[in-house]
């Protein structure tokens, strides 16, 4: 190993440092430290002549370690690393001592400041001796992106990626894409028909050459890391050969088994072989094996017999597909809370208490009643209550606000008024109409004569006439009220999907306290996750309306594209590693890593760090009882040395 020759450079920063710290004295001190070959002070180290000083010393005086005592490394560490690299020295043979932000600017007494500066320089010199050359690493990016979830957010992401000419897979667990938006009637605040704006996008997905669509499929395993995720997708047996099926619908019309339709919230029936809704993409059926007689009792076969294309195939089995992706976008959306968890709201106990999504189907022209608002007995209700915040903003259920129900409450009030006349009541705590055109929409609904009662619907009971009644405080009047209605619509909370925990585990991403997926930073990295290369969009991150979901879908596409089109991705060399000799296989480290970067090797009975996943925080290192773990550039030896040196001055 060649002799260690440290070059130390003390910066004046004009007068910023030199006014407090006696620069020359520090420089003289540095020259006395072991290993130091050159010590200089200079006006502006970061300026070109300053950088040139370093370069020349490296080339001419054999300097092979560099310490700059100047400002914060958060500012100029990359600058000086580049200087080293420009003359062929590894950028990690460098250390900075922060004598401006941490010394000259914060200290009154010049003597104390000078001494502190010396200590920091000594620490840096001591440490830099032990530095190892580290290489920035790159992984080659696979160019295909995976989108999980085919709601509006996932559709938008897939379309944007496809439009850039890159290839993308879209995996949807239901027989059709569309998500919750497909169930809606009109959409606030402009009242465009949901199907009219969604269907063209769904069709584009089906037609795009760059999109590979897998419906009735789920991601079951993800290995590897950014640039090279190896993903296993389970294609559930659909029992219909999509290649042969023409979507004629004969099978569905002849099937004898009727099941409550999930899509219609149980308000209508579907068959055992079904397409969830008329505009489905792909517009081809699937057999629900839980209810199909062929599978339940072992005989029927009607649809197979009648299918003119011979597409029905009872022998299909679940199939695993494995593919490599450069990036993953998760857009698995939300579900509406089952309001029967709070019996006070009467859902499941009283007829004519509906969830908002059910009511969307009721006012939808293609819904079970052809768009007529009808009670169970077929009559038109004379009064409807819309209860806000059912299970939202409530520590007993979900603490957060569901963000779009105020607005759809207004929308449904408008639609109900339009379709049936009569009285419509909104029971609310606060009306949150913060989007573009939202307040204007509220004003419009106010003018239409919808009643607004500020008070949370406390309970829905049946009164003595057998009518539903909402008990509430009209908080603006300070009066207790019992408002009789014929139908109550519950704006039940938007909550994480029931399988969100499993999905998070499979994809290696985190969830926030509310159960939705966690973004890397709430403001500045809303689409990234803590796992490089995995992005989130739409309601799986938290409730948001269609405009926001679309914006996020497009944004996530941009994030994914900026990764995969770069061709390669840089990985910081500051990561942890296990000394296999020392590791006792105790697994203490495994749960401590916030990124699940450490895995246990069953064969060798030791742990290993996945270098592509590790972010170098060092938490695991601090916990390893065998001292087997270390994190590069922050090794125990380096830090011990730094402690010794700073403490000695």
């Amino acid at each position, binding site marked *: 190993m060649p002799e260690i020759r440290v070059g130390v450079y003390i910066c004046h920063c004009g007068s910023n440092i030199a006014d407090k710290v006696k620069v020359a004295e520090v420089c003289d001190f540095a020259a006395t430290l072991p290993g130091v070959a050159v010590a200089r002070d200079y006006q502006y180290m970061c300026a070109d002549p300053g950088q040139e000083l370093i370069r020349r010393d490296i080339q001419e005086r054999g300097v092979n370690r560099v310490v700059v005592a100047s400002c914060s490394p958060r500012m100029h560490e990359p600058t000086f690393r580049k200087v080293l690299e420009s003359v062929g020295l590894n950028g990690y043979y460098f250390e900075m001592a922060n004598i401006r932000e941490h010394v000259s600017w914060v200290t009154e007494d010049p003597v104390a400041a000078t001494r502190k500066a010396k200590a920091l320089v000594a620490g840096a010199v001591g440490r830099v001796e032990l530095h190892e050359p580290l290489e920035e690493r790159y992984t080659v990016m696979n160019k295909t992106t995976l989108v999980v979830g085919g709601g509006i957010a996932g559709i938008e992401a897939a379309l944007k990626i496809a439009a850039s000419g890159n290839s993308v897979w879209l995996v949807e667990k239901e027989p059709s894409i569309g998500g919750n938006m497909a169930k809606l009637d009109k959409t606030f605040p402009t009242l465009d028909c949901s199907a009219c704006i969604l269907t063209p996008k769904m069709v584009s997905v089906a037609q795009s050459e760059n999109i590979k669509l897998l419906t009735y499929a789920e991601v079951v395993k993800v290995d590897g890391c950014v640039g090279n995720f190896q993903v296993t997708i389970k294609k559930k047996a659909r029992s219909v050969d999509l290649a042969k099926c023409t979507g004629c619908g004969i099978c569905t019309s002849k099937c004898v088994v009727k099941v409550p339709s999930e899509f219609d919230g149980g308000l209508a029936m579907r068959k055992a072989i079904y397409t969830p809704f008329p505009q489905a993409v792909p517009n081809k059926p699937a057999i629900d094996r839980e209810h199909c007689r062929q599978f339940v009792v072992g005989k029927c076969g009607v649809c197979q017999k009648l299918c003119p294309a011979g597409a029905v195939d009872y022998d299909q089995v679940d199939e695993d597909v494995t593919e490599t992706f450069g990036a993953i976008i998760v857009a698995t959306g939300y579900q509406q809370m089952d309001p029967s968890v*709070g*019996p*006070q709201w009467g859902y499941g*106990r009283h007829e004519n208490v509906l969830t908002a999504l059910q009511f969307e189907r009721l006012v939808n022209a293609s819904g079970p009643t052809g768009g007529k608002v009808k009670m169970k007995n077929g009559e038109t209700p004379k009064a409807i209550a819309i209860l806000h915040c059912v299970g939202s903003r409530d520590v007993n259920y979900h603490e957060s606000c569901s963000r779009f129900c105020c607005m759809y409450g207004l929308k449904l009030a408008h639609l109900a008024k339009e379709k049936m006349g009569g009285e419509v009541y909104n029971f609310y705590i606060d009306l949150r109409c913060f989007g573009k055109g939202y307040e204007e929409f509220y004003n419009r609904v106010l003018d239409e004569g919808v009643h607004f009662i500020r008070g949370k619907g406390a309970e829905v*009971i*049946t009164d*003595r006439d057998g009518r539903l009644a909402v008990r509430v405080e009209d908080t603006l009047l300070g009066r207790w009220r019992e408002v009789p209605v014929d139908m109550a619509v519950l704006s039940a909370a938007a909550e994480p999907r029931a399988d969100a925990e499993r999905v998070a585990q499979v994809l290696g991403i985190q969830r926030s306290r509310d159960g939705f997926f966690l973004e890397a930073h709430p403001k500045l990295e809303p689409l990234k996750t803590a796992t490089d290369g995995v992005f989130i969009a739409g309601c799986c991150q938290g409730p948001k309306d269609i405009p926001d979901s679309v914006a996020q879908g497009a944004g996530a596409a941009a994030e994914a594209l900026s990764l995969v089109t770069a061709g390669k991705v840089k990985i910081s060399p500051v990561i942890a590693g296990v000394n296999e000799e020392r590791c006792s296989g105790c697994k203490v480290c495994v749960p401590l890593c916030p990124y699940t970067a450490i895995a246990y090797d069953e064969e060798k009975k030791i742990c290993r760090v996945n270098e592509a996943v590790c972010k170098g925080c060092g938490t695991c290192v601090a916990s390893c009882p065998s001292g087997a773990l270390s994190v590069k550039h922050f090794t125990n030896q380096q830090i011990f040395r730094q402690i010794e040196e700073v403490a000695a001055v």
Partner: protein
Amino acid sequence: MRYAYYPGCSLKSSAYDYERSTRAICPELGVELEEIHDWNCCGATAIPSVDPTASAVLAARNLALAEATDVNGAEAVTVAAACSSCYAMLTRALNYYREDPAMRGLIGQALAAGGRTLAGTVKVKHLLEIIVNDVGLEAVKALVRKPLSGLKVAPYYGCLIVRPKGAFDDAEQPMALDRLLAVLGAQVVPFERKTKCCGGALMTTKEKSALRLNEDLLHEASSKGADVIAVVCPMCQMNLDAYQSNVNTAYGTHYRMPVMYFTQLMGLAFGLNERRLAVGKGTVSHAAVLKRMGV
């Protein structure tokens, strides 16, 4: 199954029929009740209104007495309370003791001043909970000799058996009593107001309001064709039964709705002698119920 039994003041006076029927059915169920020695009043909802802290101390004394008994050998003692108000107040004190550090300190010191200690390991259960969960409906079913066939019963829980915590059943629409009555062979009417309040002590202080609450309950029960309202709390029984004629006077109604403890109905279904169950000791006659059952 052995329990430290906390009867509470009502069961020793106005609700002696509740206590008698409880004492009659428990041996059948294999439930042994050992009365806590020298227990004091739980404070009901009255004492918290005068001193919320002292009421917790008073209730906690009973818990300390219960812990000191050895009804369960080495295992944690479970207190059995039949009165919902007692159940709620004992639970309230226990929860303060377990969950509120300031209250824990205060209760501990106050008890110590009287020479008592509380570890907080004790459990508190309502008699209904014990029968439905500890004994189990299967075991109850096996004891039914005279099913309450054809008897339409409105299951009335009142408030304090499921609130504030709703510890053993839903706070809004509990089902334990419904299920128990069904096992006894009764026809359980769906009683929407099953957890509405009977007014409790308001019957003494704000009679008009309390009568309104009871009228509401009687209305739903009778409009649904109930023959009897089954209750789990002495206060509910007294308000619905002893004040029924006051309701009739105030509202011009003609309710004659028997109000019986669930323990009495259990005893009848087990074929026990009605005198052992103190059946017939209602202000509103129980005769119609007995007749329906062919007793």
